């Protein structure tokens, strides 16, 4: 909402003046404190005091220049020669001269310049340069007398500052952000009312004076409301004998400052009143209405209207949209013959548009159902100044005033322009099926004090409320045992405040008018001890461990492209958005792989291919558990994914990353289960059968033979997946790496995984002995099983088992590989003898050879 200071000052005698910068800054700060947030303070009319009225005496070509001309003007106090590039003026025209030294808006300082050898001692200004209009086609021509030698129009004097000539000068426009609960402040009067109350000033509400004559309006027009749920009231006034004129300069100026374009006195008056009082009105050309009345009803499916902007708007048949909770219908304005002539509260129709030839005018002033207007405007993509006001709610008791005010301005414009003023028909035409009842609210002062943390008397509260329009009723008896100050107060809520429905809304008004900043701040302490829960602690620990492994934390969008999810094989049971903005962002991610692959590609394409990234975030899917719950319910769970793409990274790097994470979290007993080993005829290691639900982490998008699941040894819970990204998937994402390590973990299952007991293990003081053993083991047997067998045999003497060499080739038969282990043996209470070590060694060899397809290598 753009509010010119001069306009506000007309409604309440504010002390702030455009010329006094400090006073304007102070006023802006008060507006802020009232919740009318000043987004920008704009100083306008700068330079209007510097530029002067001048008359063109001579226009001459400049040799060698075809775009600029030499112009001599009479500025009253002598002649001035300038160079000008505009062509829209003639000798004798009255124009605006910015002499050398003038400063135009935008701190544009006029200097003496030389162009094509001709000295220019100033500039002739366009409307835009003066911020008086948008016009920059040519210079501003104030008047064109009948012929070059004609006398000056009455009252015009050459050389006077333009501000004086126009009757207005520098001004300030506050660009205010008005909250949706304050429709009254979408008007000058609403803003002025709050300011008047704040400063204890009187408020001058416009009281239009109308001279009505001729036939009663009811004889000239009718109004009818078919759908009272869409339109609570509709009134009309009629003016006849209208002559089209331009609005007075002050009206045009104010419209421009408020951000609207002056068009003609009828439309201008309607817009002016909307800005002044907050009530939109609509003038129709009664002779083009095709019937002498207006009728409001719900649009029928498929009905169309050609709106003022020439577009055909189809109404009433919108397909239901996902999640749309609106139920109201489009409201239509029709003429007396039920032909649509406009979209109620949104935009008028082209057929009855006011034009220069309009002679009889019907003025519609209505109160439409806010929800309907809001919905219609949004779906039609037609949010207008009017629709915004209807959507938020106009003052139900302000319709008559607005109607009269528009007529008053139309008459005033005609008088100012020196033409015969129109005849305002006697009386109103009124359809009022839902008469307005003001709301009443009971205010308990003790409640207000308790909620705000202040101690105001009831009388102090009413003194704050009454200037903003509350009617104070009798003080009723409050709660039992209440003292005089606790007596509840009956209030009638101002008609322009649809937001005030309960006591707490009144309490906000008390706080606001008292001043939020005057309410003393107090200390409120929690009785609890704050701490992070297990998941939060785990996240923090894992983040730091992963960063320690060189991985940067990334975050990618959760709204993704279904095709990319499909590329990575994480597209089962994806949740689709009902109303995506673009197809590339139309589903919720089912996994973290696509997002991180894209991030890797981005970095690779910026010559940083060797990176490690991790992400923590939620993935989503429809829970289609067989025979389980409703397959259409959305599910969501949190994951951690690590992408390892340093130069030598592969599945091994991912396994080691998992080992570090598991160690940092104290997780034990999680096994790597590699289905590909089983598929090739090997043994599964006795792990549970895998039938993961669609939401569980799987091996989609991962390398067939270099990836596995992380499974808890105790119950078979899948903690995550580890391995390498499927090279085909990687290249489909444009990732140039031959190998990319991948680790993905399910946070909830990670939290529930078995942990090392909180029990210290003693460390031996005695010397240890190492046994090195190499076995040729069938490829189908996971090395983990050899290690497990060794640990089992060595028992409590085993300090560590380490795989230190893997070898395939000469000396090892086909289908097997050599696995070399180093066992470190140690006892807590003695030095082991050679015989003991030898005995353990032999038992290890026997155990592995008997339990597994493996043979000791010499």
């Amino acid at each position, binding site marked *: 909402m753009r509010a010119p200071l001069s306009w506000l000052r007309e409604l309440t005698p504010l002390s702030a003046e455009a010329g006094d910068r400090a006073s304007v800054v102070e006023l802006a700060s008060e507006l802020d*404190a009232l*919740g009318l*947030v000043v987004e920008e303070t704009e100083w306008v009319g700068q330079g209007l005091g510097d530029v002067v009225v001048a008359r063109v005496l001579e226009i001459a070509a400049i040799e060698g220049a075809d775009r600029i001309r030499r112009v001599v003007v009479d500025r009253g106090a002598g002649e001035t020669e300038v160079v000008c590039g505009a062509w829209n003026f003639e000798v004798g025209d009255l124009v605006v001269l910015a002499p050398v030294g003038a400063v135009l808006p935008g701190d544009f300082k006029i200097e003496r310049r030389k162009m094509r050898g001709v000295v220019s001692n100033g500039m002739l200004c366009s409307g835009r340069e003066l911020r008086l209009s948008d016009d920059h086609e040519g210079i501003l021509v104030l008047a064109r007398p009948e012929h070059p030698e004609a006398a000056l129009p009455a009252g015009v004097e050459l050389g006077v500052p333009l501000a004086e000539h126009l009757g207005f000068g520098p001004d300030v426009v506050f660009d205010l952000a008005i*909250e949706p609960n304050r429709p009254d402040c979408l008007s000058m009067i609403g803003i002025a009312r709050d300011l008047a109350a704040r400063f204890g000033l009187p408020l001058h509400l416009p009281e239009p004076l109308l001279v009505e004559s001729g036939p009663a309006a009811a004889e000239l027009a009718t109004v009818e409301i078919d759908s009272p749920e869409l339109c609570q009231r509709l009134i009309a006034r009629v003016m006849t004998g209208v002559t089209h004129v331009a609005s007075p300069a002050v009206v045009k100026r104010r419209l421009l400052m408020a951000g609207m374009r002056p068009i003609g006195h009828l439309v201008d008056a309607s817009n002016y009143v909307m800005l002044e009082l907050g009530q939109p009105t609509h003038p129709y050309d009664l002779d083009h209405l095709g019937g002498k009345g207006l009728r409001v009803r719900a649009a029928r499916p498929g009905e169309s209207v050609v709106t003022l902007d020439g577009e055909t708007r189809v109404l009433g048949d919108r397909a239901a949209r*996902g*999640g749309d*909770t*609106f139920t*109201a219908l489009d409201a239509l304005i029709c003429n007396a013959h039920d032909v649509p002539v406009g979209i109620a509260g949104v935009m008028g129709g082209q057929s009855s548009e006011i034009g220069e030839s309009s002679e009889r005018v019907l003025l519609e002033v209505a109160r439409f159902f806010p*929800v309907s207007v*809001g*919905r219609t405007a*949004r779906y039609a993509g037609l949010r207008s100044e009017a629709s915004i006001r209807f959507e938020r709610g106009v003052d139900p008791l302000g319709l008559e005033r607005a109607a009269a005010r528009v007529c008053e301005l139309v008459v005033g414009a005609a008088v100012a322009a020196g033409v015969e003023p129109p005849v305002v028909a006697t009386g109103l035409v009124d359809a009022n099926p839902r008469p307005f009842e003001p709301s009443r609210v009971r205010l308990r002062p003790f409640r207000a004090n308790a*909620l*705000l943390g*202040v101690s105001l008397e009831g009388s102090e509260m009413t003194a704050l409320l009454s200037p903003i329009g509350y009617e104070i009723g009798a003080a009723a008896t409050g709660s039992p045992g209440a003292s005089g100050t606790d007596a509840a107060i009956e209030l009638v809520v101002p008609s322009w405040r649809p937001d005030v429905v*309960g006591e*707490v809304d009144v*309490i*906000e008004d008390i*706080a*606001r008018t008292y001043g*939020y*900043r005057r*309410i003393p*701040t*107090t*200390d409120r*302490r*929690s009785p*609890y*001890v*704050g701490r*992070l829960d297990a998941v939060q602690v785990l996240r923090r620990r894992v983040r730091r461990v*992963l960063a*320690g492994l*060189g*991985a940067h*934390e990334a*975050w*990618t*969008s*959760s*709204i993704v492209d279904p095709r990319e999810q499909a590329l990575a094989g994480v597209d089962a049971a994806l*949740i689709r*958005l*009902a109303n995506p*903005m673009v197809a590339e962002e139309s589903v*919720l991610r089912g996994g973290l792989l696509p997002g991180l692959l894209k*991030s890797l590609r*981005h*970095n690779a394409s*910026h010559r*940083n291919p060797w990176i490690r990234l991790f992400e923590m*975030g*939620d993935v*989503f899917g429809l829970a289609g558990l067989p025979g389980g719950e409703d397959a259409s*319910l*959305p599910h*969501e769970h949190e994951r951690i994914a690590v992408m390892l793409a340093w130069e030598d990274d592969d599945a091994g790097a991912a396994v080691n990353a998992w080992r570090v994470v598991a160690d940092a979290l104290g997780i034990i007993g999680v096994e790597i289960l590699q289905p590909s080993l089983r598929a090739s005829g090997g043994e599964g290691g006795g792990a549970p059968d895998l039938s993961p639900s669609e939401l569980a982490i799987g091996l989609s998008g991962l390398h067939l033979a270099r990836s596995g699941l992380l499974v808890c040894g105790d119950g078979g819970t899948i903690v995550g997946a580890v391995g390498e990204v499927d090279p085909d998937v990687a290249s489909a994402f444009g990732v140039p790496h031959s190998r990319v390590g991948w680790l993905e973990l399910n946070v909830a299952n990670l939290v529930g995984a078995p942990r090392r007991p909180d029990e210290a293990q003693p460390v031996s003081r005695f010397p240890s002995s190492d046994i090195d053993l190499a076995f040729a083991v069938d490829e189908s047997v996971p090395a983990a099983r050899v290690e497990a067998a060794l640990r089992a045999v060595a028992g409590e003497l085993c300090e560590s088992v380490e795989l230190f060499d893997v070898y395939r080739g000469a000396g090892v038969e086909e289908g097997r590989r050599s696995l070399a282990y180093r066992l470190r043996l140690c006892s807590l209470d003695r030095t082991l003898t050679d015989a003991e070590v030898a005995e353990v060694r032999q038992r290890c060899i026997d155990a592995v050879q008997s339990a597994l397809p493996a043979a000791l290598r010499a």
Partner: protein
Amino acid sequence: MERDEQVTGATVPGGTELPFTASELAEIESEALAAIEGALSLAALEEGERGALGKRSRFSGLYQQLGKLAPETRKEAGQRLHEVRRSIETLAAARRQELEAGERAARMRADRLDLTEVFAGPTAGHLHLVTQVREQLEDVFVGMGYEIAEGLEVETDWYNFQALNVPIDHPARSSVDTFYLEAGASDENFLLRTHTSPVQIHLLERNKLPIYAVAPGRVYRRDTPDATHLPVFHQIEGLVVDRGVTFGDLAGTIDTFVHAIFGENVSTRLRPAYFPFTEPSAEFEISCQICDGAGCRTCSMTGWIELGGSGMVHPAVLEATGIDSEEWSGFAFGFGIDRLAIMRYGIADLRSFIENDVRFLAQF
């Protein structure tokens, strides 16, 4: 000199005469000391020592003669010789230490490393800036005795709007501003939460009062991505519900955490605003840190920067979860984590957050 004379004067023939003159002894000593002093290596030192005190040395020769002397004289001569030996040995030990240190230093110098010619090794990764800011905020509130609550990103219309007193016709509920999901029965209206406020409802429903909690998390708005908007971003929400909670408490709490986050010199202020789920509602602002409140481009010349929204929990919200709004009152506040991050680090384009360019990630 005096001793010299004594020695000379004490010369007596036949077993009572010293086997050396003072000058002879002095000469032996000074020759030995010179040899040791002049030794440039441990080997040379050893040789010098051997030459001075070894079996075939002149000194040793004198020593062997001691047995022939009368006891008195022997004692004196022995003492003299012992002094010389001690002097030589002391010097040799010192010289040995010197040479050893020198050789150790030479050995290490040969093994020198210019510490600036080191290849870059792997570096530690960085936590995402949004994570860092979020953790800092969590720590502040944990310090204030708040619980860190979390909710899901997929919510229902009830939790995201209805229970929060957002009217059925509120623009935010339209499919223009909210992402709705194709999931569940049609009347359930699953959506992506547009704010962290649904967590308030879950906390209230738990019915464990009083509540002192914050809820950080990811939220969604149907915005076209640009420099200052992403459809996916992060917020933190606070909720306090207790007996006798006032608007003054809200102002005081905002003051407390703003000081903890931004430092003691930053001031806060509240101004009226509108949110359906709070009443009275307030935007809270902090004094601009760029210009210290003097007015600059960052704060649009106002000296203040808007941080977030807040207010007293609307009675309708308490009642929607079955809490007696006459007995309990509360306040809520919320602000953008990403916004805080871009403000503090002067990040020009929010989209940097989702590109995950390491040149960006590694800066924080």
